[in-house]
Structures are given as structure tokens and as C-alpha cells.
């Protein structure tokens, strides 16, 4: 018997009980769609994060005080016996050959006030190099002035949102902004950029690093960003910087240096894991759908006892009965899979139009995987009912009315 005839027979049988077929098909569709949607969200998160890291600037070393005891994205830091200082930052710039730019950073939250408008803002204390390292664009004015690190002027550059909330439509350039008890003259406004690595740069105020340290009463830097001249130099630069800081810190290796690559790889790994976990959770619904197919096929077998008995009487072989029922189950699950795939692709497209910055996109392997998995589900869960059908005793099956 030809495969085409087999499929034709199976389609005829499925049409014989449309509601039941439709419902179990829907079950598979929901299962497949949820697997695709959840993996798309996971994959979207991965693409989003890696994209964000790309905007961080290239060839970056990130130095921070303390030593990570474990690997992973959430560092458990031991107490650093030595502060990470501005002198450390300068030393890196001067002694690590491939270091092109160094941007020390302190970070804190301060109460900002302009006239009688107030709000809390994140304050980054850094240097003029931060502009290039973080690839920040200005909307108006200029960025923090270059100069000796220790001697910061009382000037600041504000994010676009800080501007609109504290100054309204007024031109903020040259105006005074109070941070805590201190007065800062606004010299620049950054262009809107939105979230970047969890920080909304539009809501940030940039001040010279020494001012920032005073403002927050810090003796240690929060980070030192080091831009390396080329990608190949990164491992060597990292080693050099570590040695240099160890030397400066009396032999204690009390800093951690992440390369952008390693951070990216870690995030990517974690998020791939997340994608797999989400997919795994969604796969449960696919299994449930498979059980649904099995149930429908079992009902079908017991309801069609006479038909199966007749098929055997007219000389249909047991293995042909098996393939007829398997094809039926596989058709159900494949049609369900195709439906689920279409629904999921539509939904991810909708998500992308609604949240353009979040690239919810099915992983590339989703199409072949969804179809082969749904065929597999049909064959797997159709196997038991098909065997049951093929073992039906024709004499008993036909004896009943």
C-alpha cells in the first residue's frame, strides 16, 4: 500500500471525529507554541544582554576591588584589604602598555535639587575618558573636562531625563544643580539612550571622580574601566594589570578583573541555560499534549473495534494496522505542531513590534525541531494505541454489534 493511500485513509479517519481530533491537535499546538515562545523569550534575553554588552564599548577590562570566590555573574567578594584608588587607575594607564583609556568610577545615589525641584539620582563619578569608553553621546554642552584626576571641578553632566525632570524646558547649561550639600554647574546633557546593563543612563548625573568620592565619602573606586588597544592584547593586559595592582597592594591579589569577553560568555551561558530551562518547562505541556494524543487514539481504537476487526477480516496485516494508526497520530501531532509554530511565530512578531528593543526571536533551530518533535510525539504516544489496535482479535471485534 502506498504512503499516500495510508495518509488518505488516516485523514479520513481523523475527519470521522473532528471535534476530538481538533482538540488533541490544539493540545499539541499549545505545547509547541509554548516551547517556542518561552525559548524565544530566553533567546531574546540573551541577544538583548549580549547586544547591551556590545554597546559597553569594545576591548574592555573591568577592574573591581575584592576577589571573587566563585565564578558566575553574582560575585561574592571578600573584603579588600586595599582600596582601589585613583592612583591605581593612573598606574594602569601608564604601566600597562596596551591600555588606551582608563575610566575610574565611583557610584552612588544622591538627592538632586534645582530650585525647588528634587529627586534622587544615580551619580557616577568618573573622568573625561568615560565618554569614549562607554560610547556616550552628548545632546548639548560638553563632557567632563580632562585634567588631573585628584582635582575635580564642581561641574556635572546630566542625563536627558534628569534634565527634563529638574529643569523642564529650560536650558540647563550653566545652571546650578545641588547634589546633597554641594553645588555643581551643569556643563552638558547626554543624549537619550535608555537602559544599558541595568542602568538608565538618562537618569544619571556625571561628576568628576574626585568630587564623586568626596560626595559619597569613598576611599575606594567602584570600578576601573580599561580600554585596551586591540582585542588580541586583552589577556596580556589583564595579566599585566593584575600584577601591577598586586605589586601596588603589597602583594595582595585583592582585585578582580573581568574581561568583557568573559562577562559576555558568562551571561550568554547563563541565559542559554535559562532558555533551556524555559524550554524544558514548556516541554511538559508538550508531553501533556502527547498524552492527550494517546488518549484520543485509545478512544479511537476502542470506538473503531468493528472497523479494525473488519480491516483484519479483509486481509489487512497487523503491521499495516499499526502504521495506519501511527500515521493518524503523527498527522494529528504534526498538524498541531505546524499550528503551534505559526501561532508562536506570529506572537513573537507581535512582541517585537510591541517591544522593539527586546529581540524576542525563536532560536534558529526551532523550525526543524518543532516539526520533528511533534512528529515524534505523535509516533511515541501513538505507538501504544496502534499496537493495541493491531492485536485486536477480529473474531471478538466483529462479534459485537
Amino acid at each position, binding site marked *: *500500500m502506498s504512503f499516500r493511500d495510508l495518509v488518505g485513509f488516516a485523514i*479520513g479517519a481523523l475527519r470521522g471525529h473532528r471535534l476530538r481530533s481538533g482538540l488533541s491537535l490544539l493540545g499539541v499546538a499549545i505545547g509547541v507554541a509554548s516551547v517556542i515562545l518561552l525559548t524565544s523569550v530566553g533567546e531574546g534575553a540573551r541577544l538583548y544582554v549580549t547586544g547591551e554588552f556590545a554597546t559597553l564599548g569594545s576591548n574592555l577590562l573591568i577592574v573591581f576591588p575584592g576577589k571573587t570566590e566563585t565564578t558566575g555573574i553574582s560575585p561574592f567578594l571578600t573584603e579588600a584589604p586595599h582600596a582601589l584608588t585613583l592612583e591605581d587607575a593612573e598606574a594602569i594607564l601608564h604601566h600597562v602598555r596596551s591600555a588606551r583609556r582608563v575610566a575610574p568610577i565611583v557610584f552612588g545615589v544622591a538627592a538632586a535639587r534645582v530650585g525647588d525641584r528634587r529627586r534622587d539620582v544615580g551619580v557616577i563619578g568618573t573622568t573625561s575618558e568615560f565618554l569614549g569608553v562607554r560610547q556616550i553621546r552628548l545632546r548639548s554642552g560638553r563632557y567632563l573636562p580632562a585634567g588631573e584626576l585628584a582635582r575635580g571641578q564642581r561641574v556635572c553632566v546630566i542625563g536627558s531625563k534628569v534634565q527634563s525632570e529638574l529643569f523642564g524646558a529650560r536650558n540647563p547649561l550653566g545652571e546650578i544643580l545641588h547634589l546633597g550639600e554641594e553645588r555643581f554647574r551643569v556643563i552638558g546633557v547626554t543624549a537619550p539612550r535608555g537602559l544599558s546593563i541595568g542602568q538608565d543612563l538618562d537618569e544619571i548625573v556625571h561628576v568628576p571622580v574626585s568630587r564623586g568620592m568626596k560626595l559619597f565619602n569613598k576611599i575606594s573606586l567602584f570600578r576601573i574601566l580599561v580600554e585596551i588597544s586591540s582585542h588580541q592584547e586583552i589577556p596580556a593586559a589583564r595579566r599585566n594589570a593584575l600584577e601591577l595592582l598586586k605589586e601596588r597592594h603589597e602583594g595582595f591579589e585583592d582585585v578582580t578583573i573581568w574581561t568583557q569577553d568573559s562577562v559576555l560568555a558568562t551571561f550568554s551561558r547563563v541565559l542559554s541555560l535559562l532558555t533551556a530551562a524555559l524550554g524544558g518547562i514548556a516541554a511538559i505541556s508538550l508531553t501533556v499534549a502527547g498524552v492527550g494524543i494517546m488518549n484520543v487514539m485509545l478512544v479511537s481504537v476502542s470506538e473503531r473495534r468493528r472497523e479494525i476487526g473488519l480491516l483484519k*477480516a*479483509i*486481509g*489487512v496485516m497487523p503491521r499495516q494496522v499499526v502504521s495506519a494508526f501511527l500515521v493518524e497520530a503523527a498527522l494529528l501531532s504534526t498538524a498541531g505542531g505546524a499550528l503551534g509554530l505559526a501561532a508562536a511565530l506570529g506572537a513573537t512578531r507581535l512582541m517585537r513590534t510591541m517591544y522593539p528593543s527586546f529581540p524576542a526571536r525563536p532560536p534558529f533551530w526551532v523550525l526543524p525541531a518543532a516539526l520533528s518533535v511533534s512528529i515524534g510525539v505523535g509516533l511515541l504516544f501513538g505507538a501504544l494505541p496502534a499496537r493495541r489496535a493491531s492485536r485486536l482479535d477480529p*473474531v471478538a471485534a466483529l462479534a459485537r454489534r
Partner: protein
Amino acid sequence: MIELSGISRDFQVGEETVHALADIDLTVPDGDYLSLMGPSGSGKSSLLNILGCLDRPTRGSYRLDGREVARLPEEELSRIRRQHIGFVFQFYHLVPRLTAAGNVELPMIFAGVERGERIERVDRALREVGLSARARHRSEQLSGGERQRVAIARAIVMGPRVLLADEPTGNLDISAGREIVRLLEERNARGLTVIVVTHDPDIGSRARHRIRLADGKIVSEENAVADGAAVGLRSR
């Protein structure tokens, strides 16, 4: 040619063994018209199932056209049923979702007959049972007699050597039943071996070769041809 010798069929019912057939010897020559009669439980259906290779005897030998088939595996029995045996049942056993033509086509689909040839043979079989006009009707749109004619068309479409009919008129009114008997006899006249199980003496007595069963044994066998007597076609 069907040759049964020493055929027994036992069923296990709980602790007890029921002897549905006990030591049956029977020869059915090609082109025979045989009726199996007897009260319910006499074993006539069991015998029919064994003759039709739907069931295997517990003991004994069944030679079909000289080939021993009593111990063949299921796959082989399926092939024999497909090629050599046609069934007609009391309750027709049409597949309800299929049209008359679809039901007749069914054995050929699974036997791997080409589509073009299938259509041709369906047409011919339906014409032979006088149902060409009903080819596109589903079974619920057909009367009992028409359903049984579809079943006969389905039984003959593979060109079998033996046609087995289990109470073929049991569910039909007199005139529809007469039409079915006429069709079966017509096939027999064209050389097909016809074996009918019935409890209706009017139908059973029409056969040239008549067997009565009781308690799984043959209690009487009449053979009009072997006895040399003319076979009168009594009307019912």
C-alpha cells in the same frame, strides 16, 4: 478446495474448557455451495471463522488448495484472507464514514492496488451488485439490503476463491434477503465457492451441500451433487 480433518477448537472459559468444535472432517470442493446450520452455540460461527482463516484451530489440519494453513503465522493468514477469502457479515460492518465506493475500495487500498485500477474495479463490483447509482452514498443513507450488497461488492472485489457469509440475511426483510441470496447464488454460479451460515432453513436448504452442526460436531451432511439428486430451487 478446502479439506478439514480432525479440526477442533477449544476455548478456555474460566476454569473450564469449552469444545466449540470437536473433530470436524469436511471437504468443500471448488465452486461448492455449502450451508452450515444448527442452533446457537452449535459451533457454526467457530467453523466459519476457521474456514475464513480468522481463527486457528486448536487441533487438526486445514488444507486450502493443498496448502496446510492451520499453523500459519498471522501475517500469512492475513495474506490468504486478502487474496482468497471474502466475508459477508450479518451486521454488514461497513465503515460508516466511507461511501459505498469507499467501502468497496478498502481491501484494495491495503492490498496496494493502483488508484486507477481501484476505481475501475469498484465500479465493476458495484455494478455487479446493482448499486452503481448509490456509489457516493454513506452507509447511513443506505437501506439494510443495500448495505449488504455493498458488503458483497467489497467481498468480491479482490477476486476471492471462497465467499463466507455469516447470517447474511439475518437483519433483512424477506425481499431484501431474497435479493442477497440471489446475488450469492449468482456468484456461485460463476464459480465462486459460497459458504453460508444460517439458522433459516429456507435459505440453508437452497444449498447443494448442507451441514448441520450440534455441540461442535457435524450431525448430518447432505450433498445433492454427491447423492446424484437434482437440486430443486425452491422459492421461499
